[in-house]
């Protein structure tokens, strides 16, 4: 393993050991809360669409909104400073603070510019009053989550920290005691402070109103108790009007911590006039100063960038982090850059701190797409991760290219990491493996080959490599031919032979052909190549596009004949339905999307439209544990498999995890092996629990099958195998 991969693997292992449990427990609460709370909204999708439209419009008109808000704040008696970058912002804030004591409420933007360091360097005292930020200030640690920055710390750890640092007369133990202590300690700081600093979740351009979404009440106190209010906010926080806040207020708490609404949504149109704390008591607050520091720091350039622009719609709710299996297990200290963490952090870090900061953690997004439907402004977060990965690939100088030359007929530049190139060209590899099977499988099992693969390409030797079949599915079908005549056929379909089904798991392809035929469908298996999923997952967008074009060409005759395309591998169907929109001409994309179906979804449709369930085997109450696939669930296709199996008489239990942790090549990479297994174990535990331990295990995705096979003693299979009479 290379030194860099080893360093990464060690860091991840360390974080799994030290922070993994607390992060897992806490993100789980947010994740479940979000599903429940957004489920209560009748108009959830409409609100998301509305929020998205407002953000698109605001970013489009941003220069105009900056002018508007400047005029509004000045008319209210405040000042607006537009800071080009972090240093510019800090210089201004230092001047305003002028050595006075500052109390702050939580603000990720202030973390982005490191304002505390800047102020303390100028002699000012700064106290974080958000309890989690206070914990981190005392512990001298960085946030690991954009909403709950100390999510990686357990109550016990916080108690130990406070007891050591503050030496209270009675040691602190419970969450109540810790909270009371912090409230009192910070209460004095708030009383003494002269400057209150806040961020802003939203700023309305028409009125200069800040919306602060909080629960503790500290932001309110920071503003009320002081006579100078400094708010720092990225320019992207501007929305046109006060009315525009409504969908965001309904979505942000639900999407973040799973609360319908947080305790306080403060709409402040500063300078505010509440009585303030003077030297002798409460004094009129009508002399309060207000400074709004709007920060560019790369944002205006992101606005010009067709791929990164969507990042600016982000309202920093953390849904993408909480719904991410990798994040749930390892947390934001691994899955994050200088400031931001979670899926969308790749866009933020690339935009505000530069690509190198994003490169540190970008690979932890496996493209599983579980975050996509969770984002309250419908940002395609996996796509942003893919694009930034592509840019990182193009920015690297490679020195191991010779190792994979010849295996890699791709459209990528020379500098790309050879590991990514290997996995990105899985189709070529599989073709070779199949041609030389079984020799290739024997070689692949030798210690020498595995050591070489691990050392040079970072393929973890603890993973079993795929066993290639000598005869591909396409070759088998060519030899065998269709078994339902055109006259007898109820429908005609092309079964898409994804690279895994074609060369490795041919048995599920054969089962699919037989099951479709049993339902009177005439099946063809055209030699359409790899969908582009493999290169896309490595950030090889150009190769993915070229694969997509070839697949479309191979399937075009099927579409032209008004036949359907049936897909076994959910990640490839997800390509057809989601990513092809960005890779193919629009007409080609919609033609394929509208006629392509997941295999069990198609079987469900056949049964609903008159095909007899008697043509399929009777499950006779057989107990089955089913793990759907992440991308399949994002497309809302899990229920069809369950329904078909139940129709056939199986007793089905389903998993409750976001992802199996294998995620294509991710679990094979030596730097991520431990994390992949850690994620997979949560799934394995569900299937080993009482009531499930005796069930036959089925899973739709290839990766999921590999992962389950590695972690369970039962051998899992694709659900279509249960419907195959052979």
């Amino acid at each position: 393993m290379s030194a860099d991969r080893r360093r990464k693997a060690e860091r991840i292992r360390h974080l799994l050991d030290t922070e993994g449990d607390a992060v897992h427990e806490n993100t789980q609460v947010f994740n479940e809360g979000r599903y429940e709370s957004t489920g209560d909204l009748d108009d959830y999708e409409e609100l998301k669409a509305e929020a998205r439209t407002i953000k698109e419009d605001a970013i489009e008109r941003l220069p105009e909104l900056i002018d508007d808000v400047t005029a509004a704040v000045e008319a209210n008696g405040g000042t607006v400073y537009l800071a080009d970058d972090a240093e510019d912002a800090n210089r201004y804030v230092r001047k305003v603070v002028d050595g006075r004591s500052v109390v702050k409420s939580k603000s990720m933007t202030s973390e982005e510019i490191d304002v505390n360091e800047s102020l303390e360097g100028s002699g000012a005292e700064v106290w974080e009053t958000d309890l989690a930020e206070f914990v981190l200030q005392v512990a001298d640690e960085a946030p690991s989550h954009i909403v709950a920055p100390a999510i990686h710390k357990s109550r016990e750890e916080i108690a130990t920290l406070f007891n050591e640092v503050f030496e209270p007369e009675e040691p602190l133990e419970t969450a109540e005691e810790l909270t009371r202590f912090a409230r009192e300690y910070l209460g004095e700081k708030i009383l003494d402070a002269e400057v209150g600093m806040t961020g802003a979740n939203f700023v309305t351009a028409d009125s200069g109103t800040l919306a602060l979404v909080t629960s503790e009440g500290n932001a309110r106190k920071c503003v009320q108790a002081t006579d100078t209010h400094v708010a720092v906010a990225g320019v992207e926080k501007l929305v046109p009007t006060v009315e525009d806040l409504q969908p965001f207020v309904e979505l942000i708490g639900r999407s973040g911590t799973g609360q319908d609404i947080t305790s306080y949504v403060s709409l402040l149109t500063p300078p505010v006039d509440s009585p303030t704390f003077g030297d002798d008591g409460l004094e009129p607050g009508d002399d309060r100063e207000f400074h709004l520091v709007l920060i560019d720091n790369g944002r205006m350039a992101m606005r010009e960038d067709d791929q990164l622009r969507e990042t600016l719609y982000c309202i920093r709710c953390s849904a993408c982090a909480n719904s991410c299996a990798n994040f749930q297990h390892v947390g934001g200290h691994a899955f994050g850059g200088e400031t931001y963490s979670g899926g969308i952090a790749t866009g933020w870090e690339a935009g505000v701190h530069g690509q190198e900061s994003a490169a540190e953690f970008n690979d932890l997004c496996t493209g599983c797409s579980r975050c996509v439907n969770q984002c309250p402004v419908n940002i395609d977060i996996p796509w942003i991760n893919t694009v930034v990965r592509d840019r990182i690939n193009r920015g690297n100088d490679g020195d191991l290219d010779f190792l994979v030359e010849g295996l890699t007929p791709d459209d990528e530049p020379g500098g790309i990491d050879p590991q990514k190139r290997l996995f990105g060209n899985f189709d070529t590899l599989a073709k070779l493996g199949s041609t030389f099977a079984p020799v290739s499988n024997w070689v692949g099992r030798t210690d020498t080959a595995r050591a070489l693969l691990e050392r040079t390409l970072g393929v973890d030797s603890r993973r079993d490599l795929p066993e290639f079949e000598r005869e591909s599915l396409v070759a088998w079908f060519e030899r065998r031919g269709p078994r339902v005549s055109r006259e007898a056929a109820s429908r005609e379909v092309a079964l898409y032979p994804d690279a895994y089904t074609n060369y490795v798991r041919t048995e599920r392809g054969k089962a699919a052909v037989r099951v479709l035929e049993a339902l009177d469908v005439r099946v063809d298996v055209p030699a359409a190549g790899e969908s582009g999923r493999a290169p896309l997952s490595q950030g090889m967008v150009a190769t993915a596009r070229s694969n997509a074009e070839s697949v479309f060409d191979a399937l075009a005759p099927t579409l032209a004949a008004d036949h359907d395309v049936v897909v076994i591998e959910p990640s490839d169907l997800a390509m057809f339905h989601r990513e092809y929109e960005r890779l193919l001409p629009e007409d080609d994309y919609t033609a394929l999307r509208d006629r392509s179906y997941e295999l069990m979804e198609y079987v469900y449709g056949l049964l609903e439209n008159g095909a007899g369930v008697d043509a399929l085997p009777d499950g006779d109450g057989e107990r089955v544990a089913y793990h759907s696939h992440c991308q399949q669930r994002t497309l809302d296709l899990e229920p069809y498999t369950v329904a078909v199996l139940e129709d056939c008489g199986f007793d089905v239990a389903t998993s409750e995890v976001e992802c199996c942790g294998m995620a294509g090549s991710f679990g094979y990479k030596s730097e991520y092996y431990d994390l992949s297994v850690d994620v997979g174990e949560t799934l394995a535990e569900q299937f080993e629990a009482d009531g499930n331990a005796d069930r036959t295990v089925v899973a739709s995705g290839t990766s999921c099958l590999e992962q389950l096979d590695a972690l369970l003693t039962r051998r899992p299979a694709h659900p279509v195998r249960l419907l195959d009479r052979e």
Partner: protein
Amino acid sequence: MSAEPIATFESSLDDLGVDLVRTTADEFASTLEPLLDAPAVGAPLPFEGVSLPETVETDPTVAELDAAATGVTAAGYGIADYGSVVVQGGAEGAEPVSLYADEHVAVVAASDVLPDMDAAFDRLAADVRSGTRQSIVATGPSATADMGALVQGAHGPMDVTVVLLEGA
């Protein structure tokens, strides 16, 4: 005003663990009395025929504010769907009174209970434009989960009671 938003308001508050106490201007004093734990602070109430008893300090010192067990303020309106009250602080001190006391008692007119966030934002926007400098949409007590478990009462109040003023 139909009874429906009030019923929804009551059930939303109930979900939050917030008591709703109904009263009228005539009965206000006797309704409030048992809700006041001493020492109590307050901000003047804008409702006709309703005022705070003398035991409630409306011009507190910092120490009195900090020591207050109960803080009584008006709420500009309620939001039925969420069980929220909108505290519109200003020069008269509703903001500190509603923040520092252990328990916040919010008095809202039944006619000001709005059905949902849509209606609330129409009103919030109109208020901003007519000069209201701060509106806090407050929902339940302050809370934090930052110390390893959910705790009610972080920097703000740990209890909230809503007094619904009918016929006002």
